[in-house]
């Protein structure tokens, strides 16, 4: 059943302080095994002292509209759920790692149970009307989640009013995680 939604997330790099609350909340919510993470912080400093700039990003699976991971999956374990959310069905996954190799964002890992694992946009929360755990916890409200097909959603408004970028646009993956400048 399709709801006609296109879920997306915006990451406000001006608000984010890189505290990792999102990373730990995800680990707790999703019982992410020790040694792995589904989201992570990238902190970049550019320039030479004292003329410096900084960008901090909370990153995760981009839930691409053109997901190479789904394209290459030989078993159909990687699939696109309603709302454009890219998921992995652990029962169908053989742990072949084709998707891992195809992902430009290094968003996937092999769970110790043998299947590939990654961010689900906390679809189990979203489908009952909650935000993903990372969005809920974020003390800086840097993360916003919503439906891009709804012009009144917060993510739609943010993308209309703010400058933004996606990571590795040249990969042609059409990510649905946007970084607000």
């Amino acid at each position: 059943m399709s709801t006609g939604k296109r879920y997306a997330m915006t990451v406000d790099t001006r608000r984010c302080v890189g505290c990792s609350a999102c990373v730990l909340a995800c680990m707790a919510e999703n019982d992410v095994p020790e040694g792995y993470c589904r989201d992570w912080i990238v902190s970049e400093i550019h320039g030479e002292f004292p003329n410096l700039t900084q960008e901090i990003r909370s990153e995760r699976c981009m839930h691409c509209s053109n997901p190479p991971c789904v394209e290459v999956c030989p078993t159909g374990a990687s699939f696109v759920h309603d709302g454009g959310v890219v998921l992995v069905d652990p029962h169908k996954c053989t742990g072949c790692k084709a998707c891992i190799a195809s992902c430009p964002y290094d968003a996937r890992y092999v769970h110790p149970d043998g299947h590939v694992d990654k961010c689900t946009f906390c679809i189990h929360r979203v489908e009952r009307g909650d935000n993903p755990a990372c969005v809920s916890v974020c003390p800086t409200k840097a993360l916003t989640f919503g439906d891009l097909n709804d012009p009144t959603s917060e993510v739609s408004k943010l993308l209309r009013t703010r400058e933004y970028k996606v990571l590795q646009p040249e990969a042609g993956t059409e990510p649905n995680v946007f970084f607000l400048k």
Partner: protein
Amino acid sequence: MAIGRRTFIKIVGASAGATAVGVGLGSRLLASNDYVPDPGTDGDEVIPTFCEICFWKCGVLAHKKDGRITKIVGNPAHPLSRGRLCPRGTGGTGLLYDPDRLKRPLIRKEARGKQVFEEVSWDEALDHIAAKLKEVAAKHGPESVALFNHGYGASWIKALVQAYGSDNVGAPSYAQCRGSREKAFELTYGSAVGSPEVLDIENTRVLTLIGSHLGENMHNTQVQELADAIGAGAELVVVDPRFSTAAGKARYWLPIRPGTDIALLLAWMHVIVKERLYDRDYVAKYAVGFEELEKHVADKTPEWASVETGIAPELIVETARFIAGARPASLVHPGRRSNWYGDDTQRGRSVAILNALLGSWGRKGGFFLPTSYAVPKVPASKKIEHHFKEPPDAPLDRPVPFLGEALAHGLRDASIPGANVAYPIKAWIVYGTNLLQALPEPEKTVKALEALDFVVAIDVLPAEITGWADVVLPEATYLERFDDLHAPPWKRGYVAIRQPVVPPLHDSKPGSWIAWELGKRLGLTDYLQGDVESYLDARLKKIGSSLTELKARGVLLAKREPTFIEEGLEPTFATPSGKIELFSKQLEDAGLPPLPQYTPPAPAPAGHFRLLVGRAPMHTFGRTTNNPFLGRVMRENVVWLNAKRARELGFETGDDVVVVNQDGAKAGPIKVRATEGIRPDCVYMVHGFGHASKELHFAFSRGADDSQLVTRVAIDPVMGGTGINVNFVRLERAAASEVSA
């Protein structure tokens, strides 16, 4: 078979990588799959309480399933968390289920410092403590017992020690942390900034951080407001020798020469006074001593300050105008841990005075005038009537004119044989503070510990201090116990409850129970609260609520009250003049500079860097570095070294070094972070790592313990605090044996 599969994978991976660009939707994208993940971490029960992974006390909701806490999230009803948490708040389960937790009471079997203990029953441990404390009191008086504490749960033990007859209750969180700031604001405004600080960051237009790395210093509500302010277009001025997270968001980053903040603050005031940019009406109405201030800053020119601070005079002028341009919604953050160079109260006074010129105290976007939920105390059946002896926390030949809370390092020094004090300290009760890391000059702490008649440690983890105790009592964590109600001064009054989410694990006990049981053995129960639930219920009945209600709701809000001058509230100042004291007669009368004086910092010895330390958002000092869950996002500290200096010295990011100070004290090995984001004359590390206690299996030997390098301090002549930024270090390449060890 396995080989075939691997080959297949490689081919698929390579072809996908080559063809991913521009590939349209394959048929598989449309294939139906009904699978929806459900990690199943939602609790069957959700229990509100408040956090103790740091000292901020955010309201949380603990999810409990099959008797285990699965996750901890923010309580939307709580004014400090507003439903959101810092990384540490989520990490409470890492403490609760830490396999290294203290599990049973312990009595020492060998010399102090060696962790050789015997597990004993609570009765045996408590009987032993009571007998020893009586022995110490018989010989030296009850005042010879000192309590060192950190954390909200300490209130029960404080009551016990005071009932016993000692007012020697010290916390490193005062003299080693926010004490100089509090004293500076008390001298200027008649009240401290408090905790949580009374800052209206969300409405500020210009936030100046000088000595605050907010964002790395993860005070949840303040960071939330910082982001909200940025979102609303506020600008930051950040003064920091290091390119902090906040500096990366700032309109102006001033990488100041360490130790010269007062020069910059005076020069800013010079510009603001000279150009008449200050709030004249506000100063005329609320402040005294402006003429003296004007004279004092007349020669503190940007050119003068530039030589000291390394900041161009034009930039000093520009930032002064920028800061003043947003007044009164221009907030110069008072910082928190602010004991650095010994002139820290004067530095705090400079910040306080600058805020007065901006008219930010009591104004929106500045300092709010807090309100609180008045929840009366329920007294014990008898009131303490004995007269306390003054704490011997300052040497007789070096009295401290403006004492506040007892000085923790002073109580320690009074425990060292031969101390020049009114009377010696002979026994310690140490609650929740790892004095080996929390106090500077650790060699003095060891000297005291070796000489004491008796030492008790009450803690959750086997931190270094427990290895020095004669008796170790395992306390239940904040998730397993009640504590007193929390109703702090804030923007809106509230009262919050801490309650057990799960019963105490192992053989740990809540502090309230420990205090009561010791009280029984010392004949002090008349002065103490008995059953904690009855006590909390009695308190809550006084405001028309009940323990049952609070247990269900977690927090009650008071009626909204005005907290700003703009809302018609008139500020009052509990100073001798009843006004904001720009010029401090109190300081003058004590023979101290009535207006802040700048003292140039001592230069570094050749080949040395000034050692600076700070915080990371995912840890609270050394208290959390053994938390394996928080360790997933920060396992060890690194030493920040200017990239150019690193090249000159032949160091690269990731190199293992030992940090050696001017007195030969060592810490590490620790990895180098070569970065453009720090001045060439200092190095920086996050405090709380490099644990020496082998019982802390996760934290043991990870990174470096900066406390080991603080062998010198500069004592604040106003309030007696210990400035620690007076130590200099060099980096030595670590030997292979050190790294593997």
